[in-house]
């Protein structure tokens, strides 16, 4: 008898073909990338795989952010970006760091000089593994063409398992061309170092349920872990079951409906005053899927001083006890933990506590004041959110625009609000929004940005127009690096230094140059009509709003101060 392997021999393919075959099997449909000498074999074969849509970005950083936006907005998927060796790969670093800090699963495949040239300072050689080591979850240098399939398999597994994160594969050019028999690795990828968390300990769950039963002043805070685990429903259930007010971090924004009676708001440095008050008065604080960084705690000794019991639930054991030490912790994804916890929790309401929280809400509303009749950023955002119909995906860049957009997000149900919360990468939102729209063609996508952050990656306008990526871009133009300007005014002795951006392009003309519809106004009464016109237009639109250059973010906790020292709009 002839062995089966000889009847159906595995096809012999090049390393590049094998990589592309594997991407398809991992469920990839979109690749953001940029070609160059060291990845040209990948590009040679790419057109033969029409299932893989390649989007030619105009800068590799844009490609990394686009892959990030794709993965954040299509939960469960992994974003993919290609770059060539040396300068191409190094242009990914900020995008990888952004994805790493916010736990976003992406796989970056970079070309590398041939294996025989590695270490010789060959043309466009750089130590990409070394340069990216601290901003990726893991990385691989492929050394044999026979390893290509297994490496890609494992890379996707690492990117999406446990706490997700970016993974980089450095793929030498000669191995892209080398030929070998291709067979897709059967069965699940296995890593001996990876131990899946055991189901949450029932004794701990019972203890948490008991703490909830006994608590007089309970509060829940959550972060992006709830979004990643898609635990919005469960969170809502738990809150309503036990009448627990819910606040969130910047990266948690959107996942709990602001209009819910139990909703607090964002917590911390630029959070709502009433959230900070509730956290500081709480006797039980349950933190879910969050790192509790310095933006949340402000001065650490001011964070939740009255607490009797701190519960911390996170998928990453290293987050437990890193910044605050909990009394009880659960290493689990938010959804699993909440699903197991809810059946043990008894319905209850602490009316005195809820009344007190409601009073704080009235005393410290999130608000703004229009002192001078100039267009206020919040006025633009209110009009935008009124057109989101609880459905649009909203991105924000970094700076004042980010905090305004987060604080005015107001859906009646869980929604998606995406931003670079961990690294605070200016220039993130615009390229990321390409990925978001391509992953969600049927949803409205708004990208809120400052003019400073927008110009950092505005080259992607070409990509938007070429691919007709229908995102409505809202530039809140205050002719300055607003957030830095505000810090200088309030915390650096009032000296404005290197923050003036009055020399910024005319965005309508710029849009015109790129072939992108663009509009601009400084008048309150134009805002609604302009947004309607943008929404009626099929395709990307740039909307420039010249806002009050002195508008500030409130509330804010002055640097070095504590949670209750927040300063409000006056």
């Amino acid at each position, binding site marked *: 008898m002839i062995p089966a392997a000889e009847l159906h021999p595995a096809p012999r393919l090049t390393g590049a073909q094998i990589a592309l075959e594997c991407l398809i099997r991992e469920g990839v449909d979109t690749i953001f990338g940029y070609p160059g000498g060291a990845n040209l074999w990948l590009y040679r074969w790419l057109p033969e795989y029409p299932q893989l849509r390649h989007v030619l970005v105009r800068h590799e950083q844009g490609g990394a952010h686009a892959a990030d936006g794709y993965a954040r907005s299509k939960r469960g998927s992994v974003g993919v970006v290609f770059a060539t060796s040396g300068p191409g790969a190094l242009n990914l670093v900020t995008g990888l760091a952004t994805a790493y800090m916010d736990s976003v699963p992406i796989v970056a495949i970079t070309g590398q000089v041939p294996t025989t040239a590695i270490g010789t300072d060959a043309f466009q050689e750089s130590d990409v593994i070394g340069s990216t*080591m601290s901003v990726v979850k*893991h990385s691989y240098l492929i050394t044999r063409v026979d390893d290509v399939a297994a490496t890609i398999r494992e890379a996707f597994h690492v990117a999406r398992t446990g706490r997700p994160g970016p993974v980089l594969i450095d793929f030498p050019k000669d191995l892209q061309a080398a030929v070998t028999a291709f067979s897709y690795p059967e069965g699940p990828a296995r890593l001996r170092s990876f131990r899946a968390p055991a189901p949450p300990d029932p004794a701990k769950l019972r203890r948490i349920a008991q703490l909830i039963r006994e608590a007089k002043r309970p509060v829940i805070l959550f972060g992006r872990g709830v979004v990643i685990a898609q635990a919005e429903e469960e969170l809502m259930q738990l809150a309503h079951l036990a009448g627990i007010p819910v606040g969130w971090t910047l990266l948690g924004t959107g996942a709990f409906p602001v209009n819910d009676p139990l909703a607090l708001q964002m917590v911390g440095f630029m959070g709502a005053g009433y959230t900070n008050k509730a956290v500081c008065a709480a006797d039980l604080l349950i933190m879910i899927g969050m790192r509790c960084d310095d933006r949340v705690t402000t001065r*650490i*000794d001011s964070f939740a001083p009255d607490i009797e019991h701190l519960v911390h639930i996170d998928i990453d054991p*290293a987050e437990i006890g890193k910044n605050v030490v909990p009394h009880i912790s659960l290493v689990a994804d938010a959804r699993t933990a909440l699903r197991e916890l809810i059946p043990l929790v008894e319905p209850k309401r602490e009316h005195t506590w809820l009344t007190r929280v409601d009073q704080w809400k009235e005393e410290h509303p999130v608000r703004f004041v229009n002192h001078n009749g100039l267009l206020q950023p919040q006025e633009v955002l209110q009009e935008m959110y009124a057109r989101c119909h609880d459905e649009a995906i909203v991105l924000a860049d970094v700076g004042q625009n980010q905090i305004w957009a987060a604080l005015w997000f107001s859906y009646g149900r869980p929604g998606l609000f995406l931003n670079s919360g961990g690294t605070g990468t200016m220039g993130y939102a615009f390229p990321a929004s390409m990925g978001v729209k391509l992953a969600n063609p049927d949803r409205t996508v708004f990208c809120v940005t400052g003019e400073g952050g927008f110009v950092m990656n505005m080259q992607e306008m070409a990509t938007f127009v070429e691919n007709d990526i229908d995102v409505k871009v809202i530039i809140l133009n205050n002719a300055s690096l607003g957030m830095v300007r505000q*810090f200088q005014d309030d915390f650096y002795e009032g000296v404005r230094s290197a923050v003036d951006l009055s020399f910024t392009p005319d965005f309508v003309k710029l849009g015109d140059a790129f072939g992108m519809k663009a509009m601009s106004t400084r008048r309150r009464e134009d805002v609604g009509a302009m947004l309607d016109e943008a929404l009626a237009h099929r395709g990307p639109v740039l909307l420039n709003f010249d806002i009050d250059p002195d508008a500030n973010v409130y509330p804010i906790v002055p640097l070095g101060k504590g949670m209750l020292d927040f300063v409000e709009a006056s």
Partner: protein
Amino acid sequence: MSQSRLLSVLVENKPGVLQRVASMIRRRGFNIDSLSVGPTEDETVSRMTIAVHVGRQQAEQATKQLAKLVDVITIDDITGLRNVAHELVLLRMHAPPGERTELLNMVEIFRGRVVDVAASTIIAEVTGSTEKIDNFIDLMRPYGIKELARSGAVALVRGDQARIRVLDFANGDDDRGAVPQAPAGAAGDQMGNV
């Protein structure tokens, strides 16, 4: 309170592992006293023995961060366990004929041996606990140490069991009775970056 902790770490025998471990430790601001790495009975696995000087909470953070590295297979904090932790030192000593006998006696007392003899110097080799090596070096100093090389500790836990406990943070018991606090050594201050 800061103390020395001894971590025994099994890692994938792959290029770059040492850099990953060292880079993580540096980035998180932990101080390494010594780090040794070498093969094990399984050729796909290397053992690293890392001595770090940190507080208790920081030690936990260091081990958890190490455990997260994909190339780290298991990690065991063997501080205070019944372990054998040995290092090796090579000392090139100034050894004029008049002082040689005395030197050789000292080496003998430390159960070391002389591995090289030249016209005016010798090389002595001693193995043992870090403390023993420290003592030996201190006693040798007056004779004139010309060169010194130390291996850093390698360690195994005593007894029949291959390992006592593999730290498995994903399933560990983290309950503590403490209140929220800044980890030892962390700036309690707000960074205020924009």
